[in-house]
């Protein structure tokens, strides 16, 4: 278990100071695939580098299974990193790269040989053992970097956007591969990415970060369906934002009145006010449906119909000016029954909308 408490890192001093991490607290369970997700400059890599030991935090603590990590140099932490650039040693072969950590730990030669064999098999690189690192492809380098970091059996594996240099197909494969390796080895993975697909596909839990702070922690499903605030809702997936009046709230159910005058139940964010005032309600495009204007929640006119293969996106200009997107999955034999320019009603079920904190 990694326990991070009130971690703050400030670079520089005075007016030029930049706070990369701002009072970050998070607990990562053992054997968990935990992802730090956020745009570039949000502090996710800084957090990773603090755990690895390359950056000393200004304040705060990092403990691994109850032991303080911050007092130890990187080479004394049972934590290994897969670097974004892979950082494979160019003067060594694939096998020598994988053996490096074990050699530094002064493991017996027979054990090193056995572990290297095992790691090569694990990442399916046995045939490439004696290749130089510049004689293998990017995807293979990535797997070697992974094997090298896994070989010493660290308690935590840190991965710094390891898939960002790979093409789309390879990235999809590696995502599943990583997930497989994590469950096979039982090592805690802390994965840094700015790619929401990656984060949702692989993580057990993820933390969404922005401007040095953790905005929300939860399972992929939790975060996708119940984003706590506008930044999270906007960063992950596509979202419609509706202005509404908060009528009342009991527990995590909030009663809101939409701009169209319709009233509906939505899920309340934790820590929001009890009643009164303007709030924003987030609705995922695939959670809303198009229907005839009669008894719909809102009405509007279809401005655009965009066909994207798996689904069709309907861009609706609501009465009152807001733009609302409805996504509908395409099924065989389904007639395209909504046309551009048509008057439509837009609805979403009770409890689906998410009231945001800000």
């Amino acid at each position, binding site marked *: 278990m990694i326990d991070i408490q009130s971690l703050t890192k400030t670079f520089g001093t005075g007016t030029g100071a930049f706070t990369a991490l701002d009072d970050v607290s998070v607990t990562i369970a053992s054997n968990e695939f935990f992802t730090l997700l956020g745009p570039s400059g949000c502090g996710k890599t800084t957090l990773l580098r603090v755990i690895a*030991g*390359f950056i000393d935090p200004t304040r705060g603590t990092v403990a691994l299974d109850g032991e303080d990590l911050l007092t130890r140099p990187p*080479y004394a932490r049972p934590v290994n990193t897969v670097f974004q650039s892979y950082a494979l*040693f160019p*003067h060594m072969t694939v096998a020598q790269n994988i053996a490096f950590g074990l050699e*530094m730990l002064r493991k017996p030669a027979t054990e090193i040989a056995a572990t290297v064999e095992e790691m090569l098999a694990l990442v399916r690189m046995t045939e490439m053992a004696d290749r130089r690192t*510049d004689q293998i492809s990017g995807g293979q380098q990535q797997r070697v970097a992974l094997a090298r970091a896994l070989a010493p059996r660290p308690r935590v594996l840190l991965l710094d956007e390891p898939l960002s240099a790979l093409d789309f197909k390879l990235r999809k494969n590696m995502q599943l591969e990583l997930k497989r390796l994590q469950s096979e080895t039982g090592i805690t993975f802390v994965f840094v990415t700015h790619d929401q697909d990656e984060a949702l596909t692989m993580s057990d839990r993820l933390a969404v970060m922005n401007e040095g702070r953790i905005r929300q922690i939860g399972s992929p499903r939790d975060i996708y369906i119940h984003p706590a605030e506008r930044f999270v809702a906007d960063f992950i997936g596509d979202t419609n934002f509706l202005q509404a009046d908060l009528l009342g709230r009991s527990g995590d159910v909030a009663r809101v009145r939409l701009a169209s005058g319709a009233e509906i139940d939505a899920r309340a964010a934790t820590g929001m006010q009890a009643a009164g005032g303007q709030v924003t309600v987030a609705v995922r495009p695939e959670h809303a449906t198009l229907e005839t204007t009669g008894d719909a929640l809102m009405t509007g006119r279809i401005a655009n119909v965009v066909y994207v293969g798996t689904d069709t996106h309907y861009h609706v200009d609501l009465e009152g000016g807001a733009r609302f997107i409805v996504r509908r999955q395409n099924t065989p034999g389904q007639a395209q029954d909504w046309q551009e320019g048509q008057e439509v009603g837009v609805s979403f079920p009770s409890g689906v909308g998410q009231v945001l904190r800000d």
Partner: protein
Amino acid sequence: MTDLATARARRTRNSRALLLAPAMLILLVAATGPLLIVLVYSFLTPGDYGGVIWSFSTEAWANVVVRRDIFTGDLQLADAHLSVLWRSVKLSIMTMILAFIFGFPTAYFIATRPRGQRDMWMLLIMIPFWTNLLIRTFAIMELIRNQGTLNTVLIWLGVIEQPIQMLFTEFSLLLGMTYVYLPLMILPIYASMERLDFSLVEAAYDLYATRLKVLRKVIFPLVKPGVVAGSILVFVPCLGAYVTPRVLGGGKQLMLGNLIELQFGQLRNWPLGAALSLTLLVIVMIALLFYVRAIGREGERNV
């Protein structure tokens, strides 16, 4: 199609030869020419007042290693030559090692500064290098002579009572040459160090390598071409050093360069001077051969 391609290739080849001609001509006349003259002179007989007499003789080459006793006519090892030769090689190697010991950390220091500061540091290293060699050597002399800065300060501090004789010793040569040739060591090491991907250092550090292990297992192997180049750049001019041993050695600590100058000057033995020059050249060639092989091995592994 192929005809056109061959014609174009031939044209390129022709114009390339034409463009290279002036450079080749200069190389031939200015580099190979004098060398040939030296080679020819080394097989001639010395003239009484310098110059050469055009009669073939291998005497000069024999004199590099042996000398004939004036009275008995016996052949003896020319210990004077050999000791100068030995001193040259020894001091050059020691200078090379000292330059490495001081140059490597300096290059590392500069390469790890923020990008904008590195040029400033390199400039500071280069400024003395652009100063006249003689002036720098005299500055060293002023520093270490018996009434010089160093001795004065040490006496004033009460560390010593009598000035330490540093000038005109091998120490003074070593100090002078290390100071003079240090930039030639720093420059190539810095060049390879700057290209070093420091995430490799982090990776090694992350994989349980201590600072010393990182240096030995990752940094050093990767900057080795720079170290070898720097060593050669220091070693070769040290072997032929003339000004430094002349000024700081005070005529007592001769090196090859001074010995050669003596043959062409006071001793009026041009063929021996020529033979000694070529001996120096052979030593340098051996050093370069070592360099090429070291780099070649490196190249095989990580082209």
